[in-house]
């Protein structure tokens, strides 16, 4: 059963075809990687999935519902969360406040509740705080909760982003190059964390990554794209041996 189904997705910027009739599936409960050389269109795929880009053609079904025309906040509300390739934290806010943003779409008290501070509002605030702290604890930076996020070391800032995405209580989590800029130990911990997100929280993982070692160790399925087209798909061994993939990454041998 697939949680995400993309059919003939096409995205053009003017005359440039960034994504060309791309079809792919992410199965429920899986860890799936999207790889490809620089400029292959990976992040563009993510931006289409999350509603930041409007696809020119094709369809995206999430949990069986078409999301191709929805705005990003609606898609997040439906249960798809993402992290960004370059950190996009709310820099001047505390770590806890950053993570609390994820709960916004799961809560509903408005201006009147805020002014009156009625029991419903207070209960909701406690719930937001509780979930945010739970997510921070899950990624292991609960101690930093009251620090400004811009003052954290880079590796911890990444973890704030993951906690923030988890706080939206997603079914599917899109990670855009989660290992970028991390050192060896941090990468090991990232892999353990990704597995824990899947096992303990039952969240499906779809990630873009350049670190092939990490991809091959963690993924159950790998999708390779180049020039916006899918060139290979399958388990790690199949993809690694595929001549098209080798060509895309290393180029063709001179005859």
């Amino acid at each position, binding site marked *: 059963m697939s949680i995400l189904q993309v059919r003939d997705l096409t995205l053009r910027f003017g005359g440039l075809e960034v994504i060309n009739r791309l079809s792919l599936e992410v199965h429920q409960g899986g860890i799936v990687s999207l790889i490809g050389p620089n400029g292959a269109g990976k992040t563009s795929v993510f931006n289409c999935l*999350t509603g*930041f880009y409007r696809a020119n053609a094709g369809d995206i079904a999430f949990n069986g519902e078409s999301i191709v025309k929805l*705005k*990003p*906040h609606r898609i*997040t*509300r439906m249960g798809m*969360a*993402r992290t*960004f390739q370059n950190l*996009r*934290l*709310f*820099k*001047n*806010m*505390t770590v806890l*406040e950053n993570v*609390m*943003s*994820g709960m*916004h*779409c*799961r*809560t509903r*008290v*408005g*201006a009147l*509740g*805020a*002014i009156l*501070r009625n029991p419903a*509002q207070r209960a*909701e*605030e406690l719930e*937001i705080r509780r979930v945010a702290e739970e997510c921070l604890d899950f990624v292991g930076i609960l101690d930093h909760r009251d*620090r*400004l996020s811009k*003052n954290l070391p880079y590796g911890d800032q990444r973890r704030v982003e993951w906690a*923030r995405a988890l706080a*939206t209580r997603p079914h599917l989590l899109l990670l855009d190059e989660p290992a970028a800029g991390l050192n060896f130990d941090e990468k090991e911990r990232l892999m353990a964390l990704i597995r824990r997100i899947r096992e303990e929280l039952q969240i499906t993982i779809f990630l873009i990554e350049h670190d092939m070692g990490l991809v091959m160790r963690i993924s159950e399925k790998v999708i390779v794209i180049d020039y916006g087209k899918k060139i290979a798909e399958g388990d790690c061994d199949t993809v690694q041996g595929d001549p098209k993939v080798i060509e895309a990454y290393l180029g063709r041998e001179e005859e």
Partner: protein
Amino acid sequence: MAAGSSPASPAVKKSAIAALEDRLFRFFDHRRHRHGAYALLVLCALAVPFVGDNYVLEILTNSFFYIILCLGLNIVVGFAGLLDLGYAAFFAVGAYTTGILTSHHGWNFWLTIPAAVVFSILAGVIIGGPTLRLRSDYLAIVTLGFGEITRIVARNLKDVTGGASGLIGINRPSIFGLELYQIHHYYYAFFALVVLALFVSYRLQHSRLGRAWQYVREDEDAAEAMGIDRVAIKLYAYIIGAVFAGVAGCFFAAKMTAISPETFQFMQSATILMAVVLGGMGKIPGMIVGALALILFPEVFREIGSMRMLVFGVVLILMMIFRPQGMWPERRN
């Protein structure tokens, strides 16, 4: 060595100010200290009519009025980060609602307030709905246009608004049989409004909605990715800001008993925005400081006559260079 010490001295001086600010913040972190300070301020404010003359009361009432407008604009500019150059339009909506309903239709003043709230919300939706999809500079230009449109409509809709000569004979409100006509009546009325506006601002800032404004202000795309509808959240800020100005406008009309379109010129919007920036965008106590500075400065320096606007301009430029975050200090983590 000696040369090295001279460039260091401004840094030392600056850190001395910063240290003092930090100490003050820590002092007021204690609930008892903070509440004591509030009580003292309120008592002082309540006592002024017993000691001050009408001139002082007039100036302070005017300051209170600007504090309310600044708090309202602060929600739009400070909390949500939307540059609004036409804020006077909302204040005009409130003032005209009260003016028209009391002088033409004989409404009781107090009944015009809910009507003004409704019209402010409508104005917020009409102006905000189409414009809040725009970002930063474009939004500023469009709000500037809408501000002018409102004023020109008020000037040309002669049968309703009295045209360029405006409305006169706006009824004085009364409360528990006491007609509000003396300056100290309005002093207390506006003071009560300031307290209410402060309370509402504070509660909103520390709420889910207040945080959402800050998320959108910090990074619109990340906020959107977190499931926050940025257009709806901005519209919320716009509407609440409009209601602040609308209600302030009701009381303004009642106090003046006459309003004309010239009250709501672009300079009015610019003045309020200036006070917000001067006090420190997004900081609630900063709005009090900013509004007071803006109103009191020309009064205190009345003797230097026409020079005072020049001096004021120089002070503003110096502020921009040396304290761009506004007069109210930033809390350091």
